[in-house]
């Protein structure tokens, strides 16, 4: 008996829905095995996680607050991925956004107070765009590999941010972190901890969906991503679009940073590189680059984080177990994609044929 993969000649909707569900079940099963090794009751653990993420209004708010930057980073990465441009620099572009808004809040004191927040948002977004644009230009002009440039730029930007909050921009008191932004320039809360950033994120989902699926530019990005050479033959400029898409991608990652710092941290300090940019890669991938699906995925990802926090507190499991479970949930989901593209054949050997 041999197992063979054969490419499907059409994609069925049933399979596309079934595969993620089965993958999720496999994930929970794998997780249960690992939990079993640590003598924890899997059902109890999963229950605690769900409770920890959605169990009360406050917990739900925590989850949503985390989901906002995740959603924005997922959208950011998703745009680049449409072009098969592997932007793994959203983390750095996010931090760049925070640096941008912090710069305005700290030093643009000549501005009237009411303008601090809008100008800060704009400068932060532009910083992100610039940081995304650099690898875009390098790729478009000299075909420099974007995975390397975007990854490396993360280290540069995060390192620079560290220099700023430990050294150059450090508040007079304490040993790290800038002076908090003036209260008038904070992004307002709308429901408990949930802040107005959620409107930015949801509006962006709608705008991006429209741009990507309804406009000429979206059509061009789709062509480039699916067959660059054919797009070129149809007169679509690859260079221009790579640079544009990366500017936009960086700008949205920058916006994620701007919003989170204007609404939650109110300063540039340790922990600014919280990994939202990297999780954004997973979100973009799992959502199939669809902005609306990204909403659901980013809430799930946020819930995984807040839920595992509860594990430590409630069940006394080590915090690393949370990350283990996250990984176990992701691998089958990502690997499951192969069953959407391929079918599995079991071939019996032809032994019985021999004379």
């Amino acid at each position, binding site marked *: 008996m041999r197992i063979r993969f054969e490419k499907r*000649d059409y994609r069925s909707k049933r399979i596309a829905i079934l595969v993620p569900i089965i993958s999720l079940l496999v994930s929970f099963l794998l997780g249960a095995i690992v939990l079993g090794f640590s003598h924890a009751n899997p059902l109890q653990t999963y229950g605690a996680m769900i409770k920890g993420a959605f169990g009360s209004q406050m917990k739900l708010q925590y989850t949503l607050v985390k989901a906002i930057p995740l959603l924005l980073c997922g959208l950011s990465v998703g745009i680049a991925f449409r072009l098969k441009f592997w932007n793994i620099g959203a983390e750095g572009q996010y931090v760049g956004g925070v640096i941008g808004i912090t710069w305005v809040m700290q030093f643009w004191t000549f501005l009237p107070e009411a303008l601090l927040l809008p100008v800060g948002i704009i400068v932060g977004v532009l910083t992100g765009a610039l940081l995304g644009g650099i690898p875009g230009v390098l790729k478009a002009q000299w075909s420099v590999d974007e995975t390397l440039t975007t990854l490396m730029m993360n280290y540069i930007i995060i390192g620079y941010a560290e220099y700023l909050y430990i050294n150059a921009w450090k508040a007079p008191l304490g040993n790290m972190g800038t002076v908090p932004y003036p209260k008038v320039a904070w992004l307002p809360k709308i429901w408990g901890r949930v802040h107005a950033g959620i409107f930015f994120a949801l509006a962006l989902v709608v705008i991006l969906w429209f741009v990507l699926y309804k*406009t000429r530019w979206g059509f061009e990005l789709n*062509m480039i991503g699916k067959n660059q050479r054919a797009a070129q033959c149809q007169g679509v400029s690859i260079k221009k679009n790579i640079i544009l898409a990366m500017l936009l991608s960086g700008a949205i990652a920058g916006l994620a940073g701007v919003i989170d710092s204007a609404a939650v941290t109110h300063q540039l300090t340790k922990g600014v590189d919280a990994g939202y940019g990297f999780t954004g890669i997973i979100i973009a991938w799992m959502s199939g680059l669809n902005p609306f699906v990204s909403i659901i995925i980013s809430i799930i990802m946020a819930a995984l984080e807040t839920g595992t926090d509860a594990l430590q507190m409630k069940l006394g499991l080590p915090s690393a177990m949370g990350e283990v479970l996250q990984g176990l949930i992701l691998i089958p989901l990502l690997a499951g994609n192969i069953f959407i593209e391929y079918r599995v054949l079991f071939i019996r050997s032809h032994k019985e044929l021999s004379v």
Partner: protein
Amino acid sequence: MSEFTTDETPVVRMVNITKHFPGVLANDQVDLTLHKGEVLALLGENGAGKSTLMNMLVGLYQPDSGEIYVKGSLADIKSPQDSMALGVGMIHQEFMLVGNMSVAENIVLGMKDLPFVPPMIEIRKKITDLSKRYGLQVHPDKIIQDLSVGEQQRVEILKLLYRGADILILDEPTAVLTPGEARDLNEILKKMLAEGKSAIFITHKMDEVMEFSHSVQVLRRGKSVSVCPTKSIKRVQDLANMMVGRDILFSLERGPYSPGEVRVEAQDLTVLPIGGGKPVLDNVSLTIQGGEILGIAGVAGNGQQQLTEALTGLLKVNSGKIFLNGKNMTNKTPLQIIKNGVSHIPADRGRMGVVGDMSVGDNLAMKKYRTNELSVHSVIKRGWVRKFAERLIEAFTIKTPNQDTSVKFLSGGNIQKTILAREIDSCGGILIAVYPSRGLDVGATEAVRQNLIKQRDKGNAVLLVSEELEELLMVADKIAVIFEGRIMDILDAKEATTEKLGMLMAGVEKEGV
């Protein structure tokens, strides 16, 4: 071809072979018999099941039912290694050679009983002996990527002979050869037959069947529809009809030749390869008038690709000028050239012509989505696109379940029709078609050619790059022959003959004319 004896047991017997693929019955109870010293031509349109049948003989696929006998005994062939052990070897359309290794290295590569340090002196000697015996001239120390396509094919044949194959399967072996090289291949085959080898020859070209084979088996939609000795065939037309199952036109309707104003003018185009070396386009000049089809003949890789890419803006020229529809379009972007009325049917339809993962409708809209016909203020009107696609699908008889089907699921012929529909619909006076009928079956080829002629009759200028001389002689008004980046000569299609073109394609200057 010489006679062979039929009294022995057949060397290959395939009985009642059936093979399903998802949604397709690729082979339906097919029988096939090959005798020692015989060349069997396996004729059929694309998708008739020829390659599938042969792939089962060499173990790349397993039949769902049916039996295969090799040299009299039932064979269980699960892999190409199994078939090689039985002496059956196949040369695929795409050669399986390692470009930066030598001929000798390629020939022994992957052999299981090879010692850790291969005895290269012995190997080389054996190769030289084999090539002398069969007239397969290739030097064992040459590097593959320095060889011509014809020579690479000889390496593939040597590879099989070296491993002791005596039943050779050739999948459309002449598709990549010049007429001269094809004749050489015929000689090689004859020598191999004289040594007691046999061959199966996959093709969809009638003249090859007549020239190369002893017997011919026709497949149509997975079924074997006829087996007969080649000699018994009176008219080529009969074979063609058997293959498609209906009468096909061998001559195309065309209006009188009445060229108008010059639409394409290339002056001294020169393109140098990256990193230097011999120019890939060397002072190429040509003009095409409206209402005229200029054919470009030449063996693939002699600058056709660079010429068409330069004309469509995909490749920058180092010197020379290009005028399209009267405007200087030298080194302009593809978009500027498209907007100046140039349509392009590219050589590699899957890689350059369509976006396989996008729908038929979207692929049809890929030129006009940016115009007011399909969008308003950069927002694409989906309803308009649907109607537009519906109209083209009908006008060009594109066979597709619906316009939302991904293009990659269509057959080669229908993919090409999709491209043709898009490019002809958006054509503004100039149509550049590169190998437009390559790999298509008779029906689709006919549609492609008829459409090109329709464009000419409408007063458009058509550039047709083709490797099939019959096509050029049938379709073009003038034929330019390109060799090593130079235009050897431009002939009137009425005066051109296969022989004349063949000589020019091989780089032989015209004699005293």
